[in-house]
């Protein structure tokens, strides 16, 4: 028996967790190019060094979507000289019929190395391993069959959402429908970079935030409700009987962030005006407690990962809005357009919207996009006194109110009130 060419990777075939190495080795029998991929990876494992050069390729009519990779070890591994990834927009919530999924398999084998990644961290279905010519052919076939290509560069990225109403009783709005609406409405912004930098939406049906939207997207849209929580007292009673009152106090009542929930005998009472819809009590007692009937969303803005100023978390922009009718969806798209317009005009190169807000100030930003300040946008009001009160400053000339120059002078005139 000849010696293995990938002794280090072979080690990753052992152990109980499924091994991508075993799967790729199997694939290499059908697709010899994959053994060169494994060969290069083995070299990386040996040298602790990466051997990919990268850039992006644009399909005709598009401004991105293909992550191009070129091997630096082409003389050793000529077949992976070009080894690109196509970003494909998956069905909302990553739901598939086997027919849909088999179609992706066929396309990936026909034009690429037959490697799929389900899914990338942005949410795309990734097809790995086509050369430049095949990439264009794959793109044509994908689009012929109704698929579309994800974004890259200073553009909107593929959206992601939780499973929502399709299979979750917690969902307070239709995440899949909203995802489809936003993607289709803004498909040009997704394909043709025109922003200072990337922009991501992630949609979660409730504050459990299964799409991890708060930290991983510029604009999280998270389901919530107003008014009374739905309580099934009979189920509460059963829960108390099954677990005991102490358990309920320790694990539900005392964990409420606003101390607005209480246990009275075998019944639960919620001070709904103080409930911040954190979902904890519903998660524990999911048969007894359900979101209220008047559902909607909280919209946040400004989250992103580390580059460049450190991570930022999104923060509240619209505390509550309904998101049910066509009209509601149009309000949302109009809000998004106002944000993009202001950010695109005044944002610096590579400045995510959260970084932009940090630079110009949330107050300035709100004026720029025409949204009224709301106490729910902050943890508390400012604690320092260095404030330029525009209305209280003396006029430049007698009788003439002074206006502080501000980056969004132009915008204010044309904008209407908030959503």
């Amino acid at each position, binding site marked *: 028996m000849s010696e293995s060419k990938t002794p280090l990777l072979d080690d990753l075939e052992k152990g*109980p967790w*499924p*091994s991508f190495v075993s799967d790729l080795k199997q694939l290499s029998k059908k697709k010899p190019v994959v053994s060169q991929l494994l060969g290069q990876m083995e070299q990386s494992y040996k040298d602790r060094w990466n051997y990919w050069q990268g850039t992006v390729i644009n399909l005709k009519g*598009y401004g991105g979507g293909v992550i191009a990779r070129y091997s630096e070890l082409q003389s050793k591994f000529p077949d992976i000289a070009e080894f690109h990834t196509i970003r494909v927009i998956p069905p909302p919530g990553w*739901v598939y019929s086997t027919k849909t999924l088999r179609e992706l398999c066929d396309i990936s084998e026909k034009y690429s190395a037959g*490697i799929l990644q389900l899914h990338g961290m942005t949410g795309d279905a990734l097809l790995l391993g086509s050369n430049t010519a095949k990439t264009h052919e794959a793109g044509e076939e994908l689009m012929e069959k109704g698929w579309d290509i994800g974004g890259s560069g200073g553009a909107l990225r593929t959206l992601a959402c939780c499973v929502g109403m399709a299979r979750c009783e917690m969902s307070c709005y239709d995440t*899949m429908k909203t995802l489809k609406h936003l993607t289709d409405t803004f*498909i040009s912004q997704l394909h043709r970079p025109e922003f200072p930098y990337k922009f991501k939406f992630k949609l979660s049906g409730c504050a459990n935030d299964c799409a991890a939207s708060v930290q991983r997207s510029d604009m999280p849209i998270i389901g919530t409700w107003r008014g009374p929580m739905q309580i099934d007292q009979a189920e509460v009673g059963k829960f108390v009987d099954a677990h005991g009152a102490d358990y309920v106090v320790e694990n539900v009542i005392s964990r409420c962030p606003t101390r607005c929930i209480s246990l009275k005998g075998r019944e639960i009472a919620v001070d709904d005006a103080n409930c911040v819809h954190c979902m904890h009590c519903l998660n524990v007692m999911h048969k007894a407690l359900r979101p209220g009937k008047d559902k909607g969303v909280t919209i946040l803005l400004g989250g992103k990962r580390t*580059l460049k100023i450190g991570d930022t978390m999104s923060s509240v922009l619209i505390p509550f809005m309904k998101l049910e009718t066509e009209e509601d969806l149009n309000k949302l798209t109009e809000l998004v357009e106002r944000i993009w317009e202001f950010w695109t005009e005044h944002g610096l190169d590579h400045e995510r919207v959260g970084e932009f807000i940090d630079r110009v100030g949330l107050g300035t930003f709100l004026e720029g996009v025409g949204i009224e300040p709301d106490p729910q946008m902050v943890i508390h009001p400012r604690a320092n006194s260095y404030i330029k009160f525009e209305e209280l400053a003396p006029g430049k000339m007698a009788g003439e109110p002074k206006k502080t120059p501000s980056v969004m002078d132009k915008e204010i005139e044309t904008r209407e009130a908030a959503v």
Partner: protein
Amino acid sequence: MTAQAKKLAPRDNGAPEYMPNLHPLMVKNYGKWKYHEKIKPGVLKHVAENGDAIYTVRAGSPRTLSADTVRKICDIADKYCDGFLRFTSRANLEFQVAKEANIKPLIDDVQKTLKFPIGGTGASISNITHTQGWMHCNLPGTDAAGSVKAMMDDLFEEFVNDDKLPARVKITTSCCQINCGGQGDIAVNIQHHHPPKIKHEGIGICEHPKVVAICPVAAIRPAFMNGKPTLEVVDEKCMYCGACHGQCPNLEIRDAQTDTLAIWVGGKASSTRGGPSFMKLATFGIPNNPPRWPEVSQALRKILEPYKKTGKPYERIGEWIERIGWKKFFEVTGFPFTKYHIDDFRYARTTFNTSTHVRL
């Protein structure tokens, strides 16, 4: 017919339709789900207002899959799931089953044919999110899929069971300091240790102003060398973030000799209880040691074992640390607390203890 003359396929198709990709029971009960129950680790039951029930069987996957493996997944979904399935944000598979009797044969088939484990629900360690690493990125200092495989082998029992931990633990990885991997209860991320080395001979392909502008601390400036324009880095200012390396491959931030891994704890995305939180530095200087990164798995155990012992139900790692205090955290894990654990970047002062609340 030349390629140019050929008519292009339609552009801007948008997102695929979801209804045709949903199990018929999910179409029928869309927005009408009432509650769910856990049947056993990896198996959930969702019940609709009208009494309809659908079962979900969750299986871990390596995320990178050959087309043939995906076809095998499809075969299983055709056999037991009426031809439908979904993926989770952590690259798990979810098979939707209408008939309770199909659960067992489905699980047997998944374990036999795919060798994928069933689990990842409730208080478990679900699949570790990862990115491309040496398989397909141009920036990585370490591998992604391989380190995740090694860690999941070690954490296997915590994936297939859901009663070993106080609450769910989400682990993420990043193979450069751009940090594609997200926030997590625990994150294992690469850490660079010197300013980028400039490959002057290659400088010129990138637009200089763009590279200069990307540096968060304005450490990059234009320079001249041998009569040719190039770039230089002010070493004292540079914080080794690697932003410039993403912009221009000739500012090489990686170093096979000196790059190490750091472990971060306490990140949380959901607004449950105290709200979302960022993760904080737990330990650093862990060797980047392929193919199995054993030192990483050892460090994870140092966090997980005490958390198992003293964490309360529903208490995520960050909440557990908040309750017991960071002093205790460093005691029980044995990680040294150093000056590097004290923030010196933006908003550092907001992380200092300004009260007299000390645990003695």
